[in-house]
């Protein structure tokens, strides 16, 4: 048969088999964007995995160095495009810290609220897509999508856009919340809790799901730290590390929430930690709604053109995937001299080969799904 001429290596004996390379992505239903990995498989076993990234590279850092501090914000939305608010929050806070701008308290509360909404959004995306990776024919997907649509409705109502809101401003936020926001937000929170219970009942209690995920690709805390895991990936191994608690920013110190952690760092724990985090985020949002002070939402007397003198700073924030850090270096002028993004997905993705080799093809897909990468962030 004239199939795969490039691989017709002559085996040593009739019993020898030749490994086969299978290309997965960048156009593959399971790669969550434009990630590509080339699996070398021996039957159903994965013996090698080579990841390729860069299909979504847009030169975020260079673009940010060539735009006004305020103009550059739009690019940062598009890194973790599932949680635009978290990204622009990180960038805006970095600039503010560098320029020494005080943000009104109400703006901080609204920011935290929107960032947590985005986090829920991103985690629901994970929960739904992960169910589809494990093979539940999109039921988990639509369950998650219902809540995501409601959150998007809220975000659109507030900012005018769904995915890339560009709602924050350096020194505060664009505009105050709409009139009936609080009641609508509370209603959405109830719906989120219901959706979470639905997903939990559909997936977590399912024997096949547990069988597929439990004990798969376990990571020890030492390994996780050595590989630079952050966020849910690190917490799944049992390390309660959350930037919101460890190096608090904004009004997170006033918030009362917990850090869910896992036990074994396997795929199931990663799923579990994200599931539990949605609850904590919902708690934070509720506290924000309860305690939100009145007042203005944009700092007064902001310079028309923002100029920052010499200085550099690294602003770590807890993004949805882990430590989303923004490094900015200013050398005077209206543009950053150097902008750098510490993308959590990139670090979380890096040990893919170690995790995947030795498992089955079907497991490789599930492991990749459990890393919860977003390619806008990996490729910058």
């Amino acid at each position, binding site marked *: 048969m004239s199939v795969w001429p490039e691989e017709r290596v002559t085996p040593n004996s009739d019993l020898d088999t030749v490994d086969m390379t*299978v290309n997965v992505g960048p156009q593959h239903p399971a790669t969550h964007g434009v990630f590509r990995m080339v699996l070398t498989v021996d039957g159903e076993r994965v013996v090698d995995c080579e990841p390729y990234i860069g299909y979504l590279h847009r030169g975020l850092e260079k673009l940010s160095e060539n735009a006004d501090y305020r103009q550059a914000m739009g690019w940062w939305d598009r890194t973790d495009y599932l949680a635009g608010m978290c990204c622009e929050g990180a960038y805006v806070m970095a600039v503010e810290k560098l320029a020494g701008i005080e943000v009104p308290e109400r703006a901080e509360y609204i920011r935290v609220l929107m960032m947590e909404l985005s986090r829920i959004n991103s985690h629901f995306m994970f929960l739904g897509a992960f169910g589809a990776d494990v093979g539940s024919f999109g039921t988990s997907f639509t369950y998650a999508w219902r809540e995501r649509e409601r959150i998007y409705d809220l975000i659109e109502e507030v900012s005018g856009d769904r995915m890339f809101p560009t709602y924050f401003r350096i020194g505060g936020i664009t505009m105050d919340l709409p009139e009936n926001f609080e009641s609508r937000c509370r209603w959405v929170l109830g719906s989120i809790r219901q959706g979470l219970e639905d997903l939990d009942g559909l997936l977590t209690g399912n024997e096949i799901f547990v069988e597929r995920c439990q004990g798969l690709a376990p990571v020890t805390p030492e390994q996780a730290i050595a590989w630079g895991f952050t966020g849910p990936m690190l917490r799944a191994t049992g390390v*309660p590390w959350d930037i919101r608690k460890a190096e608090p920013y904004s009004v997170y110190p006033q918030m009362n929430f917990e850090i869910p952690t896992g036990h074994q760092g396997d795929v*199931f724990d990663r799923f579990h930690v994200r599931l539990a985090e949605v609850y904590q985020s919902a708690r934070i949002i509720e506290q924000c709604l309860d305690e939100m002070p009145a007042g203005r939402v944009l700092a007064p007397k902001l310079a028309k053109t923002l100029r920052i003198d010499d200085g550099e700073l690294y602003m770590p924030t807890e993004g949805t995937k882990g430590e989303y850090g923004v490094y900015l270096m200013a050398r005077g002028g209206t543009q950053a001299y150097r902008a750098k993004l510490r993308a959590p997905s990139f670090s979380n993705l890096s040990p893919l080969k170690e995790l995947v080799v030795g498992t089955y093809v079907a497991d490789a897909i599930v492991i990749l799904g459990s890393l919860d990468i977003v390619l806008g962030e990996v490729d910058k």
Partner: protein
Amino acid sequence: MTFGDAFFGLSWLDAIIRVLIIVGAMTVVVVYLTWGERKVIARFQMRLGPTRTGPVGLLQGVADALKLLSKEDLRPRNADRWVFEFAPYLTFIPVFLVLVALPFARDWGVRNLALGMFFVFAVLGLNIVGVLMAGLGSGNKYALLGGVRAAAQMISYEIPLVVALLAVAMVAGTLDLNAIVLQQADRPFVLIQPLAFVIFFTAMLSELHRAPFDIPVAESEIVGGYFVEYSGIRWSMFQLAEYASLWAFSIFGSVVFLGGWEFPMGLEWGWGWQLALTFIKSFIIIGLIFWVRVTLPRLRVDQLMSFCWKVLIEVSFVLLLVNGLFLVYEWPEELLALANWAGTFVLLGAVYLHATRKPERKNLVGSYKHAEVPTP
């Protein structure tokens, strides 16, 4: 004219007419099964499903069929030409041959075979050839993986399937499908052979590549499996084969287990009721399959195989043995039914206990709502 008579008194003409009727019925059923599946699954997933083509999307299947017919029939350059082109037909023909043997109403199948059940077993096995040919001949690695997976899975699951059905045939004492139906006039066999039904249903899901055994056609892993390179009419042959076999299996299951066209009141109320019974029962089974499909995730290859070889085959052989004991010593049927129900509960109980052996990993949200999680 009753249905038992030959059309126009000529047996060859009669066969042709009956085959044509079956082909027509099958096409209509397949078109509306795809529509029905999309509708049912959409409802499970809080969607609407097709709504645009005709009232409640009823013409969706027709639109799909027209689209598929008008599409280009592509063949990859490194495909093995004849293997690639014949595979869809070889997948479809066995399914159609199964339909030939099935009784839809009293004396109304294409042909009533004295060894009907045996014929169905024999023909079903041929399905694998077409699937494997598609996998090997496409020149695509996903297709190859899918084809090999399908072959391994279908061969393995045929054993418990056949053994479970043999258990029923033992109780019925015949392989004639019409005779099996006639024996179920007062109670369907599912009541006295529930374990066989459970095994049959599970193995059937696997034979049909339905979730949670849809490993050969796993979209998120191998992009659809063995038919990934097909398009247009050849792809639609695969689709036709898939849904026709779904229908054929469900009718077969209803004939063997649910009393076919006979239970209840089949003989008294005439052929219209008999046909209705056949369809209602087959759609009950199909509905169950859809339900399972939207609910369960997919198993992994090794789990699938070990479930078949370590659980299903053993259980089905024990079932065969028990049935044999009861029949040889002529113990009453009620006791046989009791033993089978006990076996069913033991099997399902074991599955349940296995599933709940780690309570801390069950329904986490409930535990997380109240639990205090340590903070640093």
